C-alpha cells in the first residue's frame, strides 16, 4: 500500500524559518532508515504558501488567489511517499520521526494513495492502460 505522509505547516514554516543543522542531520538519518527499509519512494519540502497560489473553479471561470493562506494548520510544508504493508506500519514509522517542527506543535497526516484496483469498473480497461502509460513515462522522468 502506498501512503502520502504530510508534514503540516506551522507559523515558523510559513514564515520561511529553516530547520537547524541538528534537525537536518536527524531527519537525514531518519530518511536513511526509511530508504534502507525500502519504504521511502519520494520526499520533498515545499516553499511557504506566500510563494504559492490557489486556483478556484466555477464553470469556465478561473480565479487565481495569491498566497499566503490563513489556514496554516491545514497547509502542507513537506511530504513523503511511502510503501508499507499497512496503515499501522506507516503510523509506526511516523512515530519514530524526529519532531519536524521543534518548539511548536506539529502534526503529520497519513493518507492512503489510490491504486488502480480501488476504482473497480469506473476505471475502464482503456483508462487503466492510459494510466499505466502515464506512470511508466513520468516515473522515468522523475
Amino acid at each position: 500500500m502506498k501512503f502520502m505522509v504530510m508534514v503540516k505547516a506551522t507559523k515558523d514554516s510559513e514564515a520561511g524559518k529553516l530547520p537547524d543543522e541538528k534537525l537536518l542531520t536527524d531527519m537525514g538519518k531518519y530518511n536513511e532508515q526509511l530508504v534502507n527499509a525500502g519504504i521511502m519512494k519520494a520526499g520533498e519540502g515545499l516553499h511557504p504558501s506566500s510563494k504559492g497560489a490557489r486556483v478556484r473553479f466555477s464553470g469556465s471561470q478561473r480565479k487565481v488567489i495569491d498566497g499566503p493562506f490563513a489556514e496554516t494548520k491545514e497547509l502542507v510544508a513537506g511530504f513523503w511517499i511511502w510503501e508499507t504493508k499497512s496503515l499501522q506500519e506507516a503510523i509506526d514509522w511516523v512515530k519514530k520521526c524526529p519532531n519536524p517542527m521543534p518548539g511548536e506543535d506539529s502534526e503529520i497526516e497519513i493518507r492512503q494513495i489510490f491504486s488502480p484496483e480501488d476504482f473497480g469498473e469506473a476505471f475502464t480497461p482503456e483508462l487503466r492502460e492510459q494510466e499505466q502509460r502515464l506512470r511508466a513515462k513520468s516515473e522515468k522522468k522523475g
Partner: protein
Amino acid sequence: MRFMMLMIPKGYESAAPGTMPEDEKALSAMMRYNEQLQQAGVLLALDGLHPPSMGARVSFPGGKPVVRDGPFAEAKEVLGGYWLIQVKSREEAIEWAKRCPAGPNEMIEVRQVQEVQDWPEHLQPALEGFVEMGAASRPT
C-alpha cells in the same frame, strides 16, 4: 522549477471510507488532462488519495507521538490528490492548474518545491544526502 499542484475538493474532509470518484466522464476528462501534462513534458508524478476517514494524524505534544484516526473534525480543507510538475515559472504552473477540468467544489493550490540551491550554502551539504536518497528510492 518544480511545483506541486494540490487538489483540494470541498466536502472530501467528511467523505466516508471507501468513497471513490464515480463519474466516468469526469474521470476520463481528468485522464486526458494528465496526458496533456505528460505530452508537454511537465509531469513528474501524480497520485490520488483515499478520504481522510481512512487515514491518521500524528502530533507530537511535548515530543511524544499521539495518534488520532480519521476523519478529523477540525479539518476544513483536505487533500484529494496532487501532481508534481516541472515548469519554467510560477506563472506556467498556474496556467496548468487553470486548464484542469476541475469542478466548482474543487480548488488547486500551487506550491513551489524546495530545491537544494534554494537553501543557504552552509545547509546544502546536509541536504545533498536527501537528494541522493530521493533519487535512489525512485523507481527506474
